[in-house]
C-alpha cells in the first residue's frame, strides 16, 4: 500500500507544461522552434501556399533558394550574427508573411526570379530568427540545424496542398481564403507591435 501511495505521488502531472521542451534534446528542440513561433509558421505557410499556387514543378528553384536562405540564415545566426534585435526581426518576419499572404490572395502569376528572391529572403529571415538565446556552442548549432530541417519540411505541406488544390476552382478559392486569414492575422499583430504603449 505504501509503495502504491509513493508511486501515485510520483506521477508528474504538473510537469506536462514544460516537459516537451526539457527532455527532447537539442536537435528536436530546434525542430520544434518554428512550430512554437507563430510568426514563423505564418511565413512558412504563406510561402508554401504561394509556391504551390504558382506551380511547384515550374518553381523548384524557389524551393531550393528558400532552403539555401534558411541554411545561410541559420549559419549566420549560429556564428552570432543578427540583423537587429529580436523584436525587429519578428516584425520583419510578420511583414514578409503579410506580403506573401497578400500575394496568395491576389493569385496573380509571378515571375520565376521574383519567387526565387522571395524564397531566399524568407528563408534568410527565418534562419536568422531561429537562434535560441539560452543555448550555446554545439547545442546552439545542433538546434539551429533542427530548426532548418523543420522549416524546410513545414514548407512542403502547404505547398503540396496548394498544388493539389489548383485543379478545381473552389479549392483554388480555398487557398486564397487561407491566404487572407494569414494576412489578416499578421497585420493585426503588426499593428499591436507598432501601436504606441497605452
Amino acid at each position, binding site marked *: 500500500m505504501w509503495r502504491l501511495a509513493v508511486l501515485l505521488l510520483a506521477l508528474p502531472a504538473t510537469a506536462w507544461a514544460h516537459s516537451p521542451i526539457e527532455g527532447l534534446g537539442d536537435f528536436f528542440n530546434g525542430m520544434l522552434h518554428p512550430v512554437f513561433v507563430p510568426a514563423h509558421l505564418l511565413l512558412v505557410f504563406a510561402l508554401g501556399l504561394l509556391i504551390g499556387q504558382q506551380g511547384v514543378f515550374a518553381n523548384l528553384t524557389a524551393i531550393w533558394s528558400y532552403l539555401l536562405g534558411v541554411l545561410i540564415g541559420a549559419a549566420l545566426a549560429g556564428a552570432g550574427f543578427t540583423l537587429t534585435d529580436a523584436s525587429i526581426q519578428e516584425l520583419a518576419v510578420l511583414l514578409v508573411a503579410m506580403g506573401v499572404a497578400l500575394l496568395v490572395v491576389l493569385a496573380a502569376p509571378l515571375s520565376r526570379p521574383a519567387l526565387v528572391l522571395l524564397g531566399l529572403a524568407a528563408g534568410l529571415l527565418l534562419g536568422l530568427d531561429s537562434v535560441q538565446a539560452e543555448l550555446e556552442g554545439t547545442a546552439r548549432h545542433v538546434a539551429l540545424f533542427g530548426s532548418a530541417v523543420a522549416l524546410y519540411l513545414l514548407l512542403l505541406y502547404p505547398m503540396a496542398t496548394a498544388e493539389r488544390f489548383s485543379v478545381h476552382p473552389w479549392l483554388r478559392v480555398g487557398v486564397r*481564403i487561407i491566404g487572407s486569414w494569414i494576412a*489578416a492575422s499578421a497585420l493585426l*499583430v503588426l499593428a499591436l507591435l507598432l501601436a504606441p504603449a497605452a
Partner: protein
Amino acid sequence: MKILLISSLLLLSNLAHAHAEGGLAGGFGSGLLHPVLGLDHVVAMLAVGLWGAFLGNPAIWLLPVVFPLVMTFGGVLGILGFPIPAVEAGIALSAIVLGLMVALAVRPAMPVAAIIVAMFAIFHGYAHGTELPASASPLAFSLGFVISTGLLHLVGIAFGLLARWPVGRGLVRAGGGVIALVGVGYLSGLL
C-alpha cells in the same frame, strides 16, 4: 493508510488546466472561441456566408476573402484605440441588415454588396481588436478568431447553397429572417 492513499489520489488533479488560457494553445483557443461566444457575431457571420451563397458568383468566394482583410482594418483601429461609437449597436445592426438582405432576396451590384459587408466588418474587427492586447499570445489569438470567423462564413455558405432548390430558397430566406430578428433582439436589449 486509507487517508494516505486518498491524499495521494487528491494530488492527481489535472493542474495543467489552470493554464488553459495561457500560451500559444490558450491564445489560439481563446481566439477561436471569441466570435462563437457572442450570438450577435455568430449570426452576422452566418449572414455574410448566406448572402454570398445567395448572390452566387463572384460574391460567394469574394466576400469570405475580403471580409477578414477589412475586419482586420477594424481590428487595427481597435488596437490603436481609435474611438468608434456604438460598436455593439453596429454589430447588432449588421445582423439586421444582412439578415434582411437574405430574407428579402436583395441582389445589389457586387460593389454595393461588398461595401455593405465591409462596413459591418469594421465593427466586428474592432470588437475583436480591443481584446487582442490582453491576450497571452496575440498572434495565436488573432489567427484563432480570423479562422473562426472564416469557418462561420463557410457554415453560412453551406446553408446558403440550399438556395439552388426552390424549397431550399425558402429555407435560406427564412434563415435570413431569423438572423434579422436576433439582431433586433440585441439592438433592443432583449437578448
